[in-house]
């Protein structure tokens, strides 16, 4: 590249420095969004695997009756076993001070000094916990609302209530965030377990296989060997869990979320290309005579096009330099946010080189691609036409039928007509600007629509659940016993006793396909789900099954009319699928009539209660739970967990927060790109019409009036983009919401169009129009009249 060639590139951009800066800023926003998400993806996938694998996550967990040390030692000697360790986990409840009882998942570890599988990392306070003390998972401390050193009440499945001291916190990377699950994870020793009135034994075998731990088939083979070994020694295996090897339970969700974010980051970058189109179209148009001169002195189309495309490259390069620090910072913030969400620590925020290379590549290529069409069209002008006078060359406004139609729109204010009609003069530019801004509007409205739709969807889901309180019992108990307790409980309006168990589609099934089976009265008053196919349970049904949509989408064959055989405990049971119930955001569940359990000899028993209360307000729930617990205790019924409808709602809200945040952040980024686009457009419009501004001043317009004409034009463009966004928002936000929710939760939304979003975005887009045109308008009004009139 010759010096003259290089200087022209740089000086042209410098001459247009304000607009150049705006375009660089917009591209930088796109690159920052793209590189930020990309670096977060690189950090999180690396750190999640590293952090998770560093804990030595179990290859498999076998749930047995009772472990003895000899069995564990013997297993450790078996071929194929890398490490083996006994554990236990119990469900219970926990309460700090006068607070509400919370569900507790209590983990029992034999020797905290020798944890080799699914390691825990001490965070604050004491380590290991002494007898009478409990460690709490770091995120769970806020769920129970306790602090280190505080005494908390713990109620075991056996109904014993004891006081334990919270001695410290640990990080347990394998657990989902406690806030989302609304569960408190606690860690105690066997001695503490004995103090809690439970027999001090372990019942889980955590295995780390020798050989290839990442090979699931190998892991399953070893697990089968272990099962046979345990059973050969007289033990029994109730259940086996084999997680995806080496993969954090939430890794898929996180990958998906980041992929979506990266796609939208790239989208923001592509939109910033619109600004490049506008800037270079205007630049080439303003330099038509220069292009003619360059051609006249021997410049080829290719050489001249290269000149302007190089400017696009410079814009991309400058934007990359500006964007990288912002992208790195954004990637760091996003990584941190998601690591808290997924409950793991990030040891290093180092960003690998491929992120920089890919961001640079995309950041440089997008502006050049965007510039290609206007530049190639611009330089294709013939020399004679290029060297002609501007007035001769440009046919101007009024030639097309559209212009004439627009002139037919009358009004009493000529300055207002001028503003509105002026906005239509550069129609390609107008369309690109409006489209960019409207895209941001669609995202903004989508954020509100998706939020409202999610709320509506969850409302409908919870409305189908008629009970105010759900109680899980520690064991099967006679219903009559429960009835006596409930009759003594003040404020209970109605109740039902259900049986909740598990099933698997595979014989001997003990893996990830396991799902919940709920036995309930066929004429239940506590559940009225939305049936999307077939029918709900009817009195007289015995082997009828209604699958929820999650189960039906996960496992093949769950269609109305089909017969399915499920492994339920040791038995294989055949069922007639009669319907599919819609239960968004729910785990897989099959509903069967209680009559089945009665036919199997479990008549008149229950392990799960559903209750309606006289006072169903959130504030009344803790007291209602207390009263019910006391009554059940008095009749020897042990409640394991209890959840109000509000507890369920809180969990949903925590899960869905990230969707709102994601959509809002995207609309902010796109809004900023759109705003910069509008500012560039207004700046170009004013530049190209500088002489007209001079004419206006010459025939009596005050500087303020000129300013107002430009600002109203900006507001008109903002209004048009707002209206376009409104038109597009209904179908697009519905599609976007469904896409997000389908990908993340495998369900669909009950779509609601939020009118507040339309009004808000109209106000925002008009304000953006005013703000974006403020400075160009100010410049237009301050420009000396003589210079404006002399402007070419």
């Amino acid at each position, binding site marked *: 590249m010759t010096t003259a060639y290089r200087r022209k590139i740089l000086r042209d951009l410098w001459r247009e420095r304000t607009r150049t800066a705006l375009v660089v800023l917009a591209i930088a926003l796109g690159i920052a969004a793209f590189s930020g998400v990309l670096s977060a993806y690189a950090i999180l996938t690396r750190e999640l695997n590293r952090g998770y694998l560093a804990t030595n996550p179990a290859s498999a967990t076998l749930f047995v009756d009772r472990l003895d040390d000899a069995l564990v030692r013997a297993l450790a000697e078996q071929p194929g076993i890398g490490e083996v360790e006994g554990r236990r986990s119990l469900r219970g409840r926990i309460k700090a001070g006068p607070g509400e009882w919370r569900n507790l998942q209590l983990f029992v570890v034999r020797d905290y000094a020798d944890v080799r599988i699914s390691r825990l990392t001490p965070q604050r306070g004491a380590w290991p916990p002494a007898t009478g003390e409990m460690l709490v998972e770091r995120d769970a401390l806020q769920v129970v609302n306790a602090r280190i050193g505080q005494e908390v009440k713990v109620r075991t499945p056996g109904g014993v209530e004891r006081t334990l001291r919270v001695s410290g916190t640990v990080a347990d990377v394998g657990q989902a965030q406690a806030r989302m699950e609304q569960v408190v994870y606690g860690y105690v020793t066997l001695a503490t377990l004995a103090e809690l009135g439970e027999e001090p034994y372990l019942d889980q075998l955590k295995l780390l296989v020798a050989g290839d731990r990442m090979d699931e088939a190998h892991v399953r083979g070893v697990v089968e060997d272990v099962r046979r070994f345990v059973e050969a020694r007289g033990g029994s295996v109730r259940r086996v869990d084999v997680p995806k090897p080496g993969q954090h339970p939430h890794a898929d969700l996180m990958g998906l979320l980041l992929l979506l974010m990266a796609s939208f980051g790239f989208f923001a970058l592509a939109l910033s290309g619109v600004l490049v189109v506008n800037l270079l179209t205007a630049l080439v148009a303003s330099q038509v005579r220069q292009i003619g001169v360059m051609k006249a002195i021997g410049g080829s189309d290719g050489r001249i096009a290269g000149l302007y495309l190089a400017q696009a490259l410079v814009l991309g390069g400058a934007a990359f330099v500006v964007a990288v620090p912002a992208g790195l910072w954004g990637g760091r913030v996003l990584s941190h946010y998601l690591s808290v969400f997924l409950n793991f620590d990030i040891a290093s925020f180092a960003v690998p080189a491929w992120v920089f290379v890919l961001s640079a590549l995309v950041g440089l290529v997008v502006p050049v691609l965007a510039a290609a069409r206007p530049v190639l069209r611009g330089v294709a002008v013939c020399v004679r036409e290029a060297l002609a006078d501007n007035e001769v060359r440009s046919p*101007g406004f009024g030639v097309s039928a559209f212009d004439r139609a627009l002139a037919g729109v009358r009004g009493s204010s000529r300055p207002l007509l001028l503003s509105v009609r*002026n906005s239509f003069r550069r129609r390609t530019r107008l369309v690109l600007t409006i489209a960019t801004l409207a895209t941001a509007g669609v995202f903004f409205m989508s954020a509100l629509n998706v939020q409202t739709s999610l709320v509506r969807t969850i409302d409908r889901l919870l409305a189908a659940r008629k009970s105010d309180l759900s109680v899980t019992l520690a064991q099967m108990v006679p219903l009559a016993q429960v009835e006596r307790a409930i009759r003594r409980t003040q404020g209970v309006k109605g109740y039902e006793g259900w049986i909740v168990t598990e099933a698997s589609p595979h014989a001997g099934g003990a893996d990830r396909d396991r799902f919940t089976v709920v036995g309930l009265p066929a004429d239940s008053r506590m559940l009225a789900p939305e049936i999307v196919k077939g029918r709900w349970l009817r009195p007289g049904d015995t082997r009828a099954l209604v699958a929820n949509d999650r189960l039906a989408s996960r496992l093949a064959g769950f269609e109305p009319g089909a017969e399915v055989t499920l492994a339920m405990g040791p038995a294989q049971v055949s069922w007639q699928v009669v319907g599919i119930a819609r239960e968004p955001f729910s785990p897989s569940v099959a509903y069967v009539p209680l009559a089945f359990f009665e036919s199997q000899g479990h008549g008149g028993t229950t392990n799960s209660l559903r209750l309606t209360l006289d006072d169903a307000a959130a504030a009344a729930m803790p007291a209602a739970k207390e009263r019910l617990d006391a009554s059940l205790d008095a009749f020897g019924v042990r409640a394991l967990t209890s959840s109000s409808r509000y507890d369920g709602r809180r969990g949903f809200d925590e899960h869905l927060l990230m969707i709102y945040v994601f959509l809002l952040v995207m609309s902010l980024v796109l809004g900023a790109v759109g705003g910069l686009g509008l500012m560039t457009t207004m700046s170009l419009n004013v530049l190209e019409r500088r002489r007209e501004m001079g004419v206006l001043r010459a025939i009596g317009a005050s500087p303020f009036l000129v300013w107002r004409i430009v600002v109203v034009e900006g507001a008109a463009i903002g209004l048009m983009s707002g209206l376009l966004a409104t038109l597009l928002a209904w179908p697009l936000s519905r599609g976007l919401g469904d896409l997000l929710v389908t990908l993340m939760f495998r369900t669909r939304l009950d779509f609601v169009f939020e009118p507040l979003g339309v009004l808000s975005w109209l106000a925002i887009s008009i304000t953006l129009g005013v703000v974006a045109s403020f400075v160009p308008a100010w410049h237009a009004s301050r420009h000396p009249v003589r210079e404006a009139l002399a402007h070419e």
Partner: protein
Amino acid sequence: MSHPQAASPGESLISLRKVSKSYTTPAGTWPALREVDLELAAGELVAVTGRSGSGKSTLLNLIAGIDRPSSGDVVVAGARVHEMPERALSPWRGRTVGVVFQFFQLLPTLTVAENVMLPMDFCDVLAARERRPRALELLARVGIADQADKLPAQLSGGQQQRAAIARALANDPRIVVADEPTGNLDSETAAVVMDLLCSLSDRGTTVIVATHERELAGIDRRVELVDGAAIR
């Protein structure tokens, strides 16, 4: 409509005393006008002639308040234009001076009638309902009433310049300045435009026309500029 402060014919309406104007360019300071003294009376039709770069446009710009002198006094219709603040100049110009440009400079997105009504909007000289009839009357005066609702791009050059003259007369100014008003027109159309400008001075409007042409019919005076100095 008559001038609200009509001066008697012969009475000085425009007075320039020792007016100089220099422009600073990358090549140095360039004097556009040098100590020009000029008195123009109400109703005069004055031609300002000279070569390209002789200072004709600068002189017109100073009279119209579009530019300010580097030194000297510019008094137009009793107003000391060189001392007026910028914000006061636009409304003053809108009421006092009509401006006609070489390339017409009609606003392309407004119809011809709307272009003529625009200065009335700016200066509020008439009630809103009176503005369109006034615009149509002016367009009829310049012979293009039938083009009132067309966009400028649909008009010929001569028609556009006539529309520009109608716009310059919108607020019935006492002075009309026209910078090369026929420079972009064929000779026949140019003659029609010049006739129009002559007829304005017949009605008491002071008309100052900057032109390359040395021989113009119907003018009262000719001011010739050479290198920024008035030689007569």
